């Protein structure tokens, strides 16, 4: 990308799109993404190394290895929703166009992490509980979160004009925010109702440090991956909107 074409794009695209700072964001993104990419690779290398050298857990044997990728995925699923809620606030309160871009691009990532949490969770449960799917309180809430993510993605795809979808997406995300704890609480309640006092699979005994470090490193690796992919997707969305703006300008000129 030579400088001239970069400035050329910057000059007419920003006024076309009528927004002050996407160009500043693009500059920042182009610099931040490589750094984040390297950090992610590094963290994954350390995390995986620590995970695989962790001693065999006396109770679960090596299946604890699945925990090292299941728990971070579940954490990331929750974290993505909070990132989306903050973007939703930005989009509604300050009408910040980049907030909508952030919200719209975070949803698919959230769905990927939630899917991974469900897949690895079910794989983890099979050896111990003998069934692929266990209606355990935590897994069920993750499943509901997955449906909510898909709903928001469906909503973002339902509008043909992207800027028209900003407000609906933000409102639906914010409506979810107070309801998520209620859903979590009701699922826990429902879980105790049908399976009184069975040890839920995931409340492990206090973890020794040798398990905690790999878990934390892997969680950091997942977070770094999330931010890298989120910035890259936002950059893609900005490019897509510029192309769209140019096409409309061309259509109007003829």
């Amino acid at each position, binding site marked *: 990308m030579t400088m001239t074409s970069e400035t050329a794009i910057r000059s007419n695209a920003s006024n076309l799109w009528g927004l002050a700072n996407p160009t500043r964001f693009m500059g920042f993104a182009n610099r931040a993404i490589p750094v984040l990419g390297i950090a992610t690779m590094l963290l994954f290398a350390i995390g995986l190394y620590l995970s695989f050298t962790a001693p065999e857990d006396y109770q679960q044997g090596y299946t604890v290895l699945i925990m090292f990728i299941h728990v971070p995925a579940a954490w990331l699923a929750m974290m993505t929703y909070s990132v989306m809620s903050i973007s939703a606030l930005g989009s509604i309160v300050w009408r910040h166009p980049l907030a909508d871009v952030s919200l719209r691009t975070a949803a698919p990532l959230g769905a990927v992490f939630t899917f991974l949490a469900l897949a690895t969770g079910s794989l983890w449960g099979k050896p111990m509980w003998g069934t692929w799917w266990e209606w355990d309180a935590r897994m069920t809430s993750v499943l*509901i979160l997955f449906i909510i993510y898909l709903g*928001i993605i469906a909503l973002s795809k*339902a*509008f043909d004009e992207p800027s028209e979808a900003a407000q*609906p997406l933000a409102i639906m995300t914010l*409506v979810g925010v107070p309801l998520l704890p*209620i859903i979590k609480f*009701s*699922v826990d309640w429902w879980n105790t*109702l049908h399976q009184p006092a069975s040890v839920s699979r995931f409340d492990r005994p206090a973890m020794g440090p040798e398990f905690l470090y790999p878990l934390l490193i892997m969680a950091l690796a997942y977070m770094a991956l999330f931010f890298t992919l989120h910035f890259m997707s936002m950059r893609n969305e900005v490019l897509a909107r510029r192309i769209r703006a140019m096409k409309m300008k061309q259509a109007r000129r003829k």
Partner: protein
Amino acid sequence: MLALLKREIRIAWRAGGGALTGVLFFLAVVTVFPFAVGPDTKLLSHLAPAILWIGALLASLLGLDRMFAQEREDGSLDMLVMQGHPLMLVFFMKAFAHWLMSGLPLVLATPLFGIMLNLSPLGIGATMITLLAGTPAISFIGAAGASVAVKLPRGGMLISVLVLPLVIPVLVFGIAAITGALTDPAPFTTPFLFLCAITLFTSVLGPLAASVMLRHSAD
């Protein structure tokens, strides 16, 4: 404000209103289950609260997309939004009118369907009370969903996908209260109070979301 409620009710009862389609759909869902589950009454009576609740949930979701789309098409949404009335109150009334037309008939039809599923009288009573307390929450959260999809021509399906996961607590506490009434150890009042709490909470959240959404987007 009361005039708005009266108008909504009058429209629903007129030809195109569709007040009865909710109940008919509810009947359809209830009659389908025995074919899937098998005719043995002991099993059916055990599943009856679940069948009635899921039927009511789906029936309420059906009518949601008409809540605002109709108003926007004939232009009255502009004038509703412009007046001095607090918009939250206007949309509260709209959601409440929707509940009167879709939720309440389901509650009234529950005894008939309960007998069809040979649910005990206590079960029917518990189901009716929980539906009475729970279905408004579906209309209120549905109002938020309907307002978000008001511009979409085929928004109906999307609203159900958006609203269904959010109303799961209503279903959970509804069924929990019924099982509480039917089986001794489980309490009835605690889940029932949670159900009422959710309805009260959503009666603020739904209209608030709808008013923020529709304040300017009626064009």
